[in-house]
């Protein structure tokens, strides 16, 4: 495009290039630019590595916290399935009434299963588990009630609570007990942890943005003369800023990879300790690592931050450099 000389054939666009070639050249040009920027990083290994390290480590913390939350959620998820409702039967109820209630409940579509613990069974269990064995012999009658243990189909707290209130209305039921409170507390804790992760993550991500932006600013200042020359021979701002944006992209790629590696190393290191704890609790808890999805997300986020940080800096500082 020539503004001053309308008849002047200017630029490669004016020469004979067909659209397909131009399309291919567009990509070739960008790939070349990307490789060139990578080469620039390679030529200044010291400062590049520093920036990548800061970036990677800053991303490691939110990533690790995210995995922590994920694992805690997995544990609390396991507990939520055990939300059972205990129906304590009135003393006045006959065994027939208890049996018919059990049958009715078993037919209910909201209920996955019903288990009957009779007075006697409860007493036997209590005698065994409590250690009051001999003392219990002095009781003249059995004070324990019959209990129906109901396992709801929907184990979410709200649904379970509703079922509990419904079952409490049964005539022979003294009261229904749903041990939800500790579960709700755990949920609240997980939520708190999650929000803390988001807050810390946001802080660290803005730090990453500023770090990239500052590094690019320094490299713009270092190349001041070069930028002036490019402007003098007619380079547009878009042309000049492209290599810096690609530098930001590479910072993102390598920072993201570093964060991934450090997180994986951290998990590997913790795995032994967690295995010994979970064997003490006779649990088959498995520490969940990063999924491919999460890895992709991390890398994408890192690249986005790199390019954005670079763009912030380029926008502010390239305009300021004018040849004199």
């Amino acid at each position, binding site marked *: 495009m020539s503004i001053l000389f309308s008849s002047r054939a200017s630029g490669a666009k004016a020469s004979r290039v067909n659209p397909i070639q131009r399309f291919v050249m567009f990509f070739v040009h960008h790939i070349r630019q990307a490789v060139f920027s990578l080469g620039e990083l390679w030529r200044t290994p010291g400062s590049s590595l520093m920036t990548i390290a800061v970036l990677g480590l800053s991303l490691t913390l939110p990533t690790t916290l995210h995995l922590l939350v994920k694992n805690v959620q997995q544990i609390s998820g396991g507990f939520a399935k055990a939300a059972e409702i205990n129906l304590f039967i009135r003393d006045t109820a006959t065994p027939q009434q208890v049996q018919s209630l059990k049958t009715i409940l078993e037919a209910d579509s909201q209920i996955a299963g019903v288990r009957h613990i009779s007075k006697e069974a409860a007493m036997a269990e209590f005698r065994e588990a409590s250690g009051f064995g001999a003392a219990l012999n002095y009781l003249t009658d059995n004070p324990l009630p019959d209990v129906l243990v109901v396992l709801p189909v929907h184990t979410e707290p709200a649904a379970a609570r509703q079922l509990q209130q419904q079952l409490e209305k049964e005539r022979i039921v003294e009261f229904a007990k749903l041990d939800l409170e500790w579960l709700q507390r755990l949920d609240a804790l997980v939520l708190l942890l999650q929000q803390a992760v988001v807050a810390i993550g946001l802080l660290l991500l803005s730090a990453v943005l500023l770090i990239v932006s500052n590094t690019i600013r320094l490299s713009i200042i270092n190349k001041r003369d070069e930028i002036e020359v490019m402007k003098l021979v007619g380079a*547009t701002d878009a042309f000049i800023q492209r290599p810096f944006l690609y530098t930001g992209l590479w910072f993102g790629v390598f920072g993201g990879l570093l964060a991934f590696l450090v997180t994986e190393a951290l998990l590997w290191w913790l795995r032994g300790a967690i295995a010994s704890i979970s064997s003490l609790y006779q649990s088959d808890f498995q520490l969940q690592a990063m999924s491919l999805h999460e890895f992709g997300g991390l890398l994408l986020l890192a690249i986005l931050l790199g390019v954005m940080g670079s763009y912030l800096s380029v926008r502010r500082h390239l305009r300021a450099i004018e040849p004199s």
Partner: protein
Amino acid sequence: MLQFDQVSKSYPGGFVALERINFRIAKGEMVFLTGHSGAGKSTILKLISMIERPSTGRVMINNIDLSRLKRSQIPYVRRDVGIIYQNHRLLMNHTVFDNVALPLVIEGFTGKEMVKRVHAALDKVGLLDKQRCLPQTLSGGEQQRVGIARAVVNKPPLLLADEPTGNLDPELSRDIMRVFEAFNQVGVSVLVATHDLGLIARMRYRTLTLKQGRMINDGLMPAPGVL
């Protein structure tokens, strides 16, 4: 082709660099611009290349008023004007080839077409064998010629040179002037700013003379002592 219409330029602080300058350069004309340092030669070149904007008056190229162009259009103006700088303004950590190729890369040339043009430009200034060198390893005259090759590589219709023979010996100065004449002969308008009066006298082209920001002479210079 190039027209200055009542152009004045004053800098903040009250220094007046140019005062109501009028001149025209026709297509295919070769003109010298002379005067003592500080007379305003560089300011005129900066106004043409849009490094500076005039305080009043109009600078027109091909009947287009440069002051009406937007900031984003400046790069395209600079592609139409080849400029040779006194201090060369080369990319010191890139090879001669890369330096000359820069305007072509900016315009989107690639591959064979680019190589062909760069080689043609380097051949004209006689530096084809130095294309892989870094500018630091070249002499001042050679660096100047790299600058010339870069200015002409995309065949601009207008060529500006700021003290192109500044610190060169007479032999080299003459060579470089011959290069300019060669471009002029194929229809390029050339404006050479220089304070080398001997050179101007020998070449006998139209000469614009500036003194303290005013144009005091436009035409052939009387050449005392020559002929």
